[in-house]
């Protein structure tokens, strides 16, 4: 104390000199930063850079093979008046909304079913995963055949059953095409939801159902008051992912319809790709892609605030 009081400055400075570097090397917080550095660099390089570049491109008139000049919001102004763009927004919302709701319903139903005791449980669970493990392009091609105007197995079966007399034009008609791609997306997306929810269901202690049985709960009441509330956290997570994946879907549409007929199934992702790569208008395509960001952020925020409310879970404040 006395020494420092008499001669504080040199002492402090010397200690400071030593610790500055040592703190960087040994301090636990800094150590964490050292370890995070590679990951952060990786994320910056492969996530932030393309994202930033995309957004930047949307403010330029870049074409393929030619760097662009900054043109401000011109791309967006142009899109604002573009009916095809608005059609793709409508299609994307319809596609995401309808497919997500139905995927959730079917996925939850399947999960509940698979959580029951039944014969061949393991095999059935494996079968459910098939749509998920088949490469998307492959299943898209399969659906393309299923929906083919001449060789469709669906039309063929319905004709054999005598329900229709003519082939259904699945992908040629405006609304038929929309429902058809939605159906394909549902087929592809259900396993992810079903298996994730099944995992969630299996974390619910069987003792709770026994307690509820003795408390006099019917099967529906058990689902309503035990299963569903305990599953909500995982539902929120899985549905957020499902909405994000569906909203940004590209492969299925591109293989099956390329956005047709007459843009009826163009999603924002496919339209952006078509304008940027197909048409060569990188700036405009980027603007369409960038326009997806607010929708995605909204979806994330909704689920995030949804998750915040469940204070009965571990690790949150006590009030």
């Amino acid at each position: 104390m006395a020494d420092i009081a008499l001669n504080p400055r040199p002492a402090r400075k010397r200690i400071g000199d030593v610790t500055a570097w040592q703190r960087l090397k040994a301090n636990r917080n800094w150590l964490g930063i050292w370890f995070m550095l590679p990951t952060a660099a990786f994320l910056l390089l492969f996530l932030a850079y393309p994202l930033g570049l995309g957004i930047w491109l949307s403010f330029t008139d870049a074409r393929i093979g030619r760097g662009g000049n900054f043109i401000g919001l011109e791309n967006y102004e142009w899109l604002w008046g573009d009916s095809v763009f608005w059609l793709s927004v409508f299609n994307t919302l319809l596609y995401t909304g309808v497919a997500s709701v139905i995927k959730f319903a079917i996925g939850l139903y399947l999960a509940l079913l698979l959580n029951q005791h039944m014969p061949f449980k393991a095999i059935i669970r494996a079968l459910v995963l098939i749509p998920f493990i088949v490469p998307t392009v492959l299943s898209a091609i399969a659906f393309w055949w299923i929906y083919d105007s001449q060789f469709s197995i669906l039309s063929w079966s319905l004709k054999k059953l005598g329900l229709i007399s003519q082939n259904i034009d699945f992908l040629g008609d405006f609304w038929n095409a929309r429902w058809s791609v939605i159906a394909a997306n549902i087929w592809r997306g259900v396993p992810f939801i079903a298996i994730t929810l099944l995992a969630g269901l299996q974390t619910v202690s069987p003792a709770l159902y026994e307690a509820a049985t003795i408390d006099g709960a019917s099967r529906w009441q058990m689902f309503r008051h035990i299963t569903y509330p305990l599953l909500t956290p995982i539902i929120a997570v899985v549905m957020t992912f499902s909405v994000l994946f569906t909203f940004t879907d590209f492969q299925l549409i591109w293989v099956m319809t390329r956005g047709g007929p007459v843009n009826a199934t163009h999603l924002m992702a496919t339209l952006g790709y078509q304008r940027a790569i197909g048409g060569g208008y990188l700036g405009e395509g980027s603007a369409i892609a960038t326009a997806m960001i607010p929708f995605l952020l909204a979806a994330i925020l909704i689920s995030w605030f949804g998750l915040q409310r469940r204070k009965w879970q571990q690790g949150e404040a006590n009030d």
Partner: protein
Amino acid sequence: MASVTCANVRKSFGATQVLHGVSIDIRDREFVVLVGPSGCGKSTLLRMIAGLENISSGEIRIGERVVNHVPPKERDVAMVFQNYALYPHMTVADNMGFSLKLRSAPRREIDERVKLAADILGLTPLLARYPRQLSGGQRQRVAMGRAIVRDPQVFLFDEPLSNLDAKLRVQMRTEIKELHQRIETTTIYVTHDQIEAMTMADKIVVMHDGMVEQIGAPLHLYDHPDNLFVAGFIGSPAMNLLPGRITANGGGGFEGPGGARLPLATAPNGSTGQRAIYGVRPEHFSLADDGAEAVIQIVEPTGSEIQVSAKLGGADITAVFRERHQFKPGDKVRLRPDARLVHLFDETTGKRLNA
């Protein structure tokens, strides 16, 4: 409130039979404890009474009603689980009121009954908390509260205290007993802890390997075990069981391990020379010049008494004295069992031989 009757109840899981014909009569308002070693089928029987397991054969009646095929919710029983099984997403109040809510009882009635039960159990300040914000003892109380609110015909407890520390267990033991004296609902309580059974029960059912060994009041089981299993299971420290031979009837005796001569007040007629097991409780030894010689091994004073481990004719025995004898390991003493309080069991069947 109601009586409960199990008549020749059997239970099989697939090919393995775990209950081999259990018959128990439980009177209205009685506090019955099912006790037995782990795996003997106590929980299974309790769950059959609750309706969580179906009944392979036999009959279970609650009151006058045969409930074999009655679904759990119509049996009007409440159960407290070993791990409490509280609903993690409901507050204490909602946990307790859940069964009433399912029956669509009016909000006001639910609140009233929850409040009443919370008062009884001292849970009032915790009603707004979630289960994860409670201590083990508090959770246990909430689980009991959930049962009380229902005002059922029968309470079923499955080892409700086994997750608590020793001190809390003793405290909750008293609380459950007080609770029963207060609300007088027929209670079936499962435990593998014989002290819990002795202190709480009006009637104890000792089970072993899916069968009932003996049913009776705690002190009756203590004083008059029907067989070797009950003799060894009830009482702590356990009864000394010494193999040997009946030497004479009437004013007879018993030849214990190493030829030790042990007194016997009565033995069945014509049993002279028969091999048997001689049972004597640790506290029924006294020092006497004509006793059997024993060498003291370990002396454990607890304050109120002295517990002594000794070798008697090569066999290990335990004796407990209320007097403050100055024993040292290695001392030779002469111990005499109180002949009137000796239990005699058949060596092969384990059945009690003396009256």
